[in-house]
């Protein structure tokens, strides 16, 4: 169904349930859906599993969500940053679970969820602690680890522009995890800088087709 245009971030995140798996776009702050995360904090869903490349910066955005104790588990590639003190503290205190995933496997596992792939053999991580306990296989002389899809109940992503159907374009390296997360969640919510009329986006340049987008809000 065509995307719903929401008037506010609050409306855009309505109905997210306790225990949900939430995919959150962004690489550092680029592409981070800051207003949607703020609305999720106000909305109150708890016991969340958050899938995101990083685990929050400073005291705002994802870090603020973690600080409220709303997140049970983080699945990410790079939690440790110079300003990741909120995550660091929770992790050291044993108050948050971490599944550390190499960045490419993180992206590809979400792609698999979106593309209907049941599992795939990745060369990344073979022979390292991050592949411990996973099935391995040698194929054509190379060694691989079997990786499974990561599917979200909700994805919160940041894009540059949407048309009123929900087609999305991104801007520079803020694109990062947005397109793949948009394919991998049951409900996909995009915040954008601008919503334009249908027909105003060149069909050759659409990065996320409207089929993947459920709710759009301009911030």
């Amino acid at each position, binding site marked *: *169904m065509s995307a719903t245009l929401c008037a506010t971030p609050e409306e855009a995140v309505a109905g997210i349930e306790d225990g949900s798996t939430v995919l959150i776009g962004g690489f550092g702050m680029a592409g981070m859906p800051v207003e949607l995360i703020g609305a999720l904090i106000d909305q109150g869903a708890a016991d969340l599993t958050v899938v995101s490349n990083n685990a929050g910066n400073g005291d705002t955005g994802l870090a603020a969500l973690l600080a409220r104790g709303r997140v049970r588990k983080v699945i990410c590639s790079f939690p440790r940053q110079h300003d990741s003190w909120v995550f660091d503290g929770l992790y050291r205190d044993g108050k948050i679970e971490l599944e550390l995933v190499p960045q490419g496997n993180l992206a590809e596992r979400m792609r698999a969820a979106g593309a209907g792939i049941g599992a795939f053999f990745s060369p990344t991580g073979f022979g390292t602690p991050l592949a411990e306990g996973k099935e391995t296989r040698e194929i054509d002389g190379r060694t691989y680890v079997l990786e499974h899809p990561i599917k979200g109940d909700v994805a919160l992503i940041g894009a540059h522009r949407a048309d009123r159907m929900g087609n999305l374009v991104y801007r520079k390296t803020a694109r990062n995890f947005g397109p793949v997360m948009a394919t991998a969640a049951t409900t996909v919510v995009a915040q954008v800088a601008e919503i334009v009329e249908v027909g105003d986006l060149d*069909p050759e340049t*659409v990065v996320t087709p409207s089929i993947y987008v459920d709710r759009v809000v301009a911030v």
Partner: protein
Amino acid sequence: MSLSKQEMAAVVARDIPPGAFVNLGIGQPVLVADHLPEGSGVVLHTENGMLNMGPAAGDQVDPDLTNAGKQPVTELPGSSYFDSAASFAMMRGGHLDVCVLGAFQVSARGDLANWHTGEPDAIPAVGGAMDLAIGAKSVFVMMTLFARDGSAKLVPACTYPLTGVGCVDRVYTDLATFDLSPGGVVVRETFGISIDELAGRLDVPLEPPAK
């Protein structure tokens, strides 16, 4: 009276929800597009890499813009283009709401046979049929209920090579529409034939329409 092809297409079109993302298979299913109501907001997908495909091209043919049957088509406002890997990721990933496919046979448990007659000298060709069969949220089949030789096409088990296993949700035919539910084959609607007569001509147990 049994339904004509155009009437069958109209029955299918009536059941497609407004705003749905839909793939219409090559052949008869393409007719469904003509019966979608104005302003339905239904978005057509074509497997060769496009969403919001428009009607067949008239005099202005663009060789770079075709449907899955390689016929020239048009684009509607809000369309998008993507490559074949992305297009089939969309199909396989369960993002299409409905696909409508033709069939040689459908079994009572939803197996589909629509790509190969099994004749030894036939050139096999499958295209995107197997991806569509297992990919869409709802898989509709549109076919005549009986083949030219009089044999039923809704069968206890397919004798033709399968396209997909347990994948068909609903079967639209010229004589009746069927839901293939876990509880059995439910007759939704009949056209110029009684359920008893239908039951007599088919080799699968039929459930009456839900009240």
